[in-house]
């Protein structure tokens, strides 16, 4: 233990960073006119100086991470498996394309960090043809990986330059094989972090590997009960400045995916309260229950134009509601959680500094009542001292 006491833990987010020593946690809004390292030194230079490079641990979600586009042949297997692996590797998904209809999909204009092509068990062949190649010709991407039928790999390799071929994510029993793709994506993420000039400079103050924040959080979850009396099954919401992450116990989904993870992760990329505030408001305005929710919170739509602590609170409450909608039967994402069996809602991240437990319970109750017409009320747990994150970094 004595060794662990001497660690300095730093988390760099899109909106703010936090710095934690054994006896203190500081949180600061980032100054975007400054390089991350300068900003850190400016605010917490004295603290940082007290620590040896070996004792400084950093994780980052500052760049929102990598994004991926997944092309697969069915929703139940290839697309679902690759999506699951991507989320659990900390990658954000721009879109999933059902290959048979590929010609009907629009081509994203932004650069895609990594394209994943997947489909078929190894004994199945000839699944892809020209429509794939003509789609890819229109798409700009940095990396491309094939994790489908091994029989199809040579043909694809011939047509697609720089194609990385990995073992199939679907085995001959139609079960998921996670490890290879997960390792590949985690490494890409790592390289991306290291490649970003801003983050790279952080290696001036640490001798340890810089990890993606969601990876750290996910790792901490199996040990969450050492910090909180959380009753399983639970979900964890991390509502950040740019994205919202949800980590959930596997028990909460009826899935054909059988993996080693106890917890899975899901990301909503454009649902944050600062950097992606506009898209949050847009999503809110398209939700038929939001006006009722605003009324329930005793505010009007005008709150969206305000810049105040009150407005931030409302946005965070909205973010909780919208995310819950997205994973319920009401707005099905790729999973559908069994809300009636959730026992605890754990919230971490900046939200815990802004909202009180009662304010969160209020939203959770509204959600259960309106969307699920249920009186079920999971226990709300606030990770207001970043214990989960600390657990994750220290566990490394």
């Amino acid at each position, binding site marked *: 233990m004595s060794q662990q006491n001497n660690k300095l833990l730093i988390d760099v987010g899109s909106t703010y960073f936090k710095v934690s020593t054994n006896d203190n946690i500081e949180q600061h809004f980032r100054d975007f006119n400054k390089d991350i390292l300068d900003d850190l030194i400016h605010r917490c230079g004295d603290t940082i100086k007290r620590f040896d490079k070996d004792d400084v641990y950093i994780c980052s979600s500052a760049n929102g991470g990598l994004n991926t586009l997944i092309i697969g*042949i*069915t*929703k*139940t*297997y*290839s697309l679902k498996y690759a999506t699951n692996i991507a989320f659990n590797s900390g990658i954000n998904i721009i879109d999933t394309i059902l290959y*048979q209809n590929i010609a009907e999909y629009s081509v994203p204009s932004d650069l895609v960090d990594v394209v994943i092509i997947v*489909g*078929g*068990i190894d*004994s*199945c*062949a000839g699944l892809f043809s020209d429509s794939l190649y003509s789609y890819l010709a229109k798409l700009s991407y940095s990396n491309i990986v094939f994790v489908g039928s091994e029989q199809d790999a040579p043909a694809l390799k011939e047509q697609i330059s720089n194609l990385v071929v990995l073992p199939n994510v*679907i085995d001959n*029993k*139609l079960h998921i094989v996670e490890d290879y793709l997960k390792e590949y994506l985690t490494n890409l993420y790592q390289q991306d972090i290291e490649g970003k000039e801003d983050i790279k400079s952080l290696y001036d103050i640490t001798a340890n590997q810089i990890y993606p924040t969601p990876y750290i959080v996910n790792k901490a979850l199996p040990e969450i009960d050492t910090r909180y009396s959380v009753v399983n099954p639970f979900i964890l919401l991390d509502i950040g400045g740019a994205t919202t992450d949800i980590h959930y116990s596997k028990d909460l989904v009826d899935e*054909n995916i059988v993996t080693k993870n106890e917890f899975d992760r899901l990301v909503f990329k454009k649902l944050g309260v600062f950097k992606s505030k506009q898209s949050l408001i847009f999503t809110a305005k398209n939700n038929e229950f939001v006006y009722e929710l605003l009324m329930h919170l005793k505010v009007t739509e005008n709150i969206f134009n305000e810049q105040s602590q009150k407005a931030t609170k409302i946005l965070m409450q909205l973010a909780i509601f919208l995310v819950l909608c997205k994973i319920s039967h009401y707005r099905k994402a790729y999973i559908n959680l069994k809300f009636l069996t959730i026992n605890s809602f754990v919230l971490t991240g900046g939200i815990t500094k802004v909202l009180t437990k009662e304010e969160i319970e209020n939203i959770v109750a509204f959600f259960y009542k309106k969307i699920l017409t249920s009186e079920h009320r999971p226990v709300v747990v606030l990770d207001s001292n970043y214990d989960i994150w600390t657990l994750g970094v220290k566990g490394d």
Partner: protein
Amino acid sequence: MKVVTGVVGNDIHVVANRLIDLSLRARGFEVFNLGVNTYLEEFFDAAVETGAEILLISSLNGEAEGWGREVKLLKAKYKDLDNLIMMIGGNLVVGHGNAEDIVPKYKNYGFDLVCHQVDLNTGLDSLEEFIQKRNRK
């Protein structure tokens, strides 16, 4: 040949499913058993991923009708399943019914072979006959 099999919908009667798996293997089929509690979309998706030629659905608890009606619509969304041999068996109605009424109805839903309360071996014999006939064509 590859066969995808399983029990449709919320049905959890597993015994027939195990027997079907074993019998098909004994007859030399390559079996992808999705087990009980399998939804239509999962059956079709599994056929796509495995390149299966046959889909053998069973239903015991009386749910089949409801699902049967959705088969055509859903299958039409798939571009490469036109040659899939579709078979269904078990208890295909709620309560009692006779095969003369049931078989045409399910054929109309898009099934090639319909086995209402037919013994498994008899059913699988008819499947093999069907395959032979088709190959001769």
